[in-house]
């Protein structure tokens, strides 16, 4: 199931949808690109986070604290979207 529920810093519930999973050379951890969408409006955000596995084999997400990794991951997302748009 690639949809999940999010609660943000303002305690608002949102719907998350996984778009893609990738990893970068600077970090061994996997990074997930997902969208967070409002339940009752058309607003949405593109987001990134670390993708982890718990003891039962289920995935969970955690925030990317390393500024360098965050920046590079954002560049990669930009690059991926450019590739998709331009071929």
């Amino acid at each position: 199931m690639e949809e999940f529920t999010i609660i943000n810093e303002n305690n608002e519930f949102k719907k998350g949808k996984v778009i893609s999973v990738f990893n970068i050379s600077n970090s061994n951890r996997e990074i997930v690109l997902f969208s967070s969408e409002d339940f009752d409006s058309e607003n949405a955000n593109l987001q990134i986070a670390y993708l982890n596995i718990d003891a039962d084999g289920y995935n969970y997400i955690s925030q990317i604290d390393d500024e360098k990794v965050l920046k590079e991951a954002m560049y990669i997302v930009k690059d991926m979207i450019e590739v998709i748009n331009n071929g």
Partner: protein
Amino acid sequence: MNSLFAEYNRYVQLISRKNMLDSRLSQLSGNSDNITEINEIASELGEISTEVSRYNTVLLEKVNQYFNANKEFNRICGELRTIEQLSKKSKGEKESVLSAENKKKEVDKELVDEYRKLVEEKKKYRMMQLRPYQKLKEVTTLLSKTEPAIDRKNDENVNDYVLPDLPSYDKLSNKEKINELEKYVQRIFDSALLPGQGKKVIVNYNGEKKTIPEKYKGRLNEALIQLSSLRKIDTKKDNEQEVSNSETEELNKKLDSVLDEINKDLYGIKIKPPEVPKGKFRINKSESHVTTKNKRVVKKISELLTKFNNIDKRLTLSVLRLERKLLDKGITIKNKTINFKKGIKQKYNSSKCSVRKVTNVTKSKFKREILLAGNLVRKVHLSALKLERTLLDKGIIIKNNTIKFKEGVKQKYTSSKCFVENVTKSAKNRIASKYNQVKNFFHDKKIVLEKSKNVGLQKAMEEVYGESKGKHLDYRIVNKTVRFKNNMCYRVNERKSKICEISRQAIDKIKEPFDRLKYNMKADITREELEREIALIKIENAVKKQQLFKTKTKKMGGYVASGTLAVLLTIIIATIVFVLVGNIVNK
């Protein structure tokens, strides 16, 4: 005290409101229609929890004790007062009893026992009330001065508690990670032997069939996927090392060939002995060789020698390093030839003679290094000796003299008289190209060394941060289906991890090619592969569009044909009817 009372009342109100909202939230949970109400409740709960967290819990407990005692005390006082009033009104027999303040009170005989009990309780509660009151005397507010815990998390400037630096799983090296995962997998296999593990399944592991509890199947799969990816990375690194070794070997071979060619060229140059004009050249008869002052020849040969010296220096450097290492360890290798008597067998006890255990790998590496360094030095010496011999054959000795000219005096020379030999342009170029080859060799070697140290890639990545171009980015798209627990809600700081705001339609458009990619993916893919896959998808789309267009046009063609047929038929029928009617009318 009044302000404390107000604050305490506010706290009680907040707690009661929180309980009410919690119960309402539990009623609404699981119903996505009321999501706006849920969001409102959640935000209000958040505000309440921040306000509650500002209260000092220790002081709250004290105030709570005080107010509870005060409440009970007031109740007892009220009851005593009612007994006193009742006994005043009653006309029955009365008895004098001491009150809690040691005053005599006339109380009805029937109520005496109860009055005494209440007096005792009043005394007890007065003490109980007094103690917390004394504790609260100096307290002015129940709110703590420190910031609430939730705000602290959001504040970026506040330093969090730093955990001791224990080696986490992420910081482990690849090999250590592989070891850890192998142990983990083994533990899963061992768990099948334990009692009460439930239903078991058979799995294939390294070509062997093993039983594991069914509940651990997911964990095993994840561990095996991670293991395989780590092993892939490990083998890739080994291959890169092998490649770099082979590159250095190739470059060494190249150097050998270049050196050989230089030697050939040197032999190929024919330097004629100069025609010595009288008074210009000095002939040293005792040493029986000629010295020349011709600048071109001297320059050429000195250049050659400096080039060779440089090569020699670079190559002897490795030998010197090896020597220094050995000297640091107190080992000197003597250049001694050993002669054994023929026909006598030498005996030695290997256990007593061994100095240190050396692995086969280090042994072979050591041997190879010595051989390589020795060979190269020998070759360079040989070529230098050959050069010296050729010069000697021609009767030329190059002296290592420093030339000093007098200051302020102009030197005169006749170029036609100092001329030794014409060297053709092609020969000049050939020699220059050879030296360039040597120069390039060292340049290439430097690049190989940089590659092997993995410095180039890092620098390139650092450069990327300042650039908007993504062509240097190194990433892989992972072939993975993500599984989240159904009933879980994940906390995300949207402000920090947000890339951009986007509409739902745009997200669907981005998601579509990724979904298609995932459907066709068999393994992880790199950026170049992503480009290729996207191009393929685009081509596929274009073909589909064309096909769709064709079928549409075909359909349209069918409609047009059937329409024209129908019109033609009606016209024919109409003409026939008109002709028939006309004939009938005419007749």
